[in-house]
């Protein structure tokens, strides 16, 4: 059922006459595997993730996830299909941990409250967040917030999961556990793509490593 994430010859420039941020990116992440893109800050790694997630239009190329595709004509093709763990997590501050995770299932999947709650509480259990279900994000530590962001993304049962700089908002002591979290998600058999500027994280995660150079990728 799970399909690989395929990016084919992706071109993107922020302004019409500006320089290309992504120039012909291609990559393939098989289901259940993790690929890591390493590159300096500002190289365009976040841009790549936002194009895949459907938040940003691109000029040429295509993104495929099984039957689903994004194209320059329909850049939002994968919106809602792909989970994204934001660099700053972007939890909704006015909602509790559980409500953060329930919002998508309730509004998008139209899941009745009991079913949604069962799904979310199961995820919170796995991520050791059960005790914090009724807490507001402002009271959580960085590591806890990251796990809430993961739970919120997984509650939507995404076809792929993207990570934007998963260690940058965390204390150094938590970096190793992030790699473990990412490997843990691999068990759900979806493709994952991690972008980071930190080569150590890339090695800790394992999986295929791409280097971001001048808007293109090399292994």
């Amino acid at each position, binding site marked *: 059922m799970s399909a690989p994430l395929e990016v084919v010859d992706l071109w993107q420039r922020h302004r019409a006459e500006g320089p290309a941020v992504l120039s012909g990116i291609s990559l393939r992440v098989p289901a259940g595997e993790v690929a890591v893109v390493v590159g300096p800050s500002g190289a365009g790694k976040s841009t790549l993730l936002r194009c895949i997630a459907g*938040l940003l239009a691109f000029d040429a190329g295509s993104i495929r996830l099984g039957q689903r595709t994004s194209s320059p004509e329909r850049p939002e093709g994968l919106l809602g299909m792909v989970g994204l763990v934001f660099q700053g997590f972007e939890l909704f501050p*006015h909602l509790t941990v559980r409500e953060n995770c329930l919002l998508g299932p309730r*509004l998008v999947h139209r899941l009745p409250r009991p079913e949604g709650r069962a799904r979310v509480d199961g995820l919170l259990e796995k991520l050791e967040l059960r005790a914090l279900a009724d807490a*507001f994000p402002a009271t959580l530590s960085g590591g806890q917030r990251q796990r809430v962001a993961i739970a919120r993304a997984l509650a939507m049962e995404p076809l792929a999961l993207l990570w934007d700089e998963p260690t940058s908002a965390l204390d150094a002591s938590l970096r190793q556990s992030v790699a473990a979290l990412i490997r843990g998600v691999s068990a759900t058999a979806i493709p994952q793509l991690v972008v980071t500027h930190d080569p150590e994280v890339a090695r800790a995660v394992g999986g295929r490593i791409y280097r971001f150079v001048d808007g293109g990728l090399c292994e």
Partner: protein
Amino acid sequence: MRPTPGTALLLVVLCRAGTAGPEAELARRLHGELRWGADSQGGAPYVFQDPSDPRRVVGFEVELAEALAARLGVRARLVQGAWEQLLPLLERGDVDVVLNGIEVTPDRARAYRLTRPYYAGSQLLTVRRGDGGAPRKPEALAGRRVGTLPGSLAERVLRAAGADVRTYDGGQDDMYRDLALGRTDAVLADAPIAAYYGALEPELEVLAASAGDVRYAAVVASRDLELQAALDLALGELAADGTLARILARWRLWNGETGAALGISGPPADAPADGWLAWESATRTERSAWSRALHRYPSFLPLLLRGAGLTLVLSVAAMALAIVVGAVLAGMRVYGPGPSRWLATGYIEVVRGTPLLLQLIVLYFGLPELGVRLHPFVAGWLALGLNYAAAEAENDRAGLLSVPVSQLEAARVLGLTRWQGIRHVVAPQALRIVLPPATNDFISLLKDSSLVSVVTLAELTRTYQSLASATRDHLGLGVLVAALYLLLGLPFARLARWLESRLSVHLATGMRR
């Protein structure tokens, strides 16, 4: 051939029959009532609230209107309006006739139809008693500070004389008080006003010499020849049978000029002046502020509460409109495509950049020219609501922009539509930012609602002004009305603070419940 008594009788019968037809038709057209416009804030002896029972409106013009209506075979119904706006009400069709000390002037005679006069008299100067430098002649007025009522004939006389004119919207009492306090050097006003307000102050002196003539006439719309003719006929009858002279005598307004203007003789010498006497005793009684409050204010309360009720209902309804329209405008401005952004921005700039009073007057008196006639309450509601919508739109915009764009992106990645993201993620966070200024705006709106008095709505401030002018008690009533405004606003301020703390719960405590 000289008519025999028999043919004379026949002629009279024919004449009566000849006038009965149109009269009955007029009564039908008026739907059984003569709507007459007046401003009770103008005060005694014209149309004012009875100081001893403020629920009643009394005055010589009240009695005249009732006598005229009776002649036309209909009931008299008073429509309150601001004095300067009474004549526009005629054109708008809100009243059939204006009867409120409207002086006969050539320009009014051109724009409207004036009946024959029902009162003739003088304009009188009032000065401070013993003020050696006071202007005591019209020629001495140039360059002097002189008080009068805005839009009155006296104001024109003063301007022509080169006086430094001070006009008083608030009522006749204010202008004599300012004179007594030395803020002006003299007051020029019609003789009835001078008699009822100026002459009551011991430190003021009403000069006997006339500074100009004045005549009052009833006014109807220029198209209403029929009503003018009927009113002229009725006034003639009231003059002939002594009713008019008796009414004027009751208020001590009878004078030789009126007799000459109407060609009638005066009332009997022993005609009672009970209207005047009641006014004098009610306003002359020297009571301490405390006993006045105790004795009078309870009887004022029903009127004030009715005014406060109108203020409250109007303000709440207008704020609801402002919140809805404001939210739509803010949404258009922050999230809409180009044209809708420009539209919303244009609306906000135009509405915010022009006075509320102007908008209200255009809405009420201007739109009828395009065939749109709004009920006074609807006009007031729309003007206040649409005006405050611009302010709310800016509040909402600030609130929406205070939420980082990435929050909406996070919602979109989850699969929420743009609208769902705004509704469930951005708006709830914006609300906390919007609430305090919106509460502020509601309190402002509550106070600005006093402007709707120009469209005939007797809200709280208007009620205060006419009561204060009728009872000559500005301070005590003012404190009472201020307290009422505070009472109206406070519950909403508390409600907003409570809501705000509820919306901030995630920042303060962390755990729900």
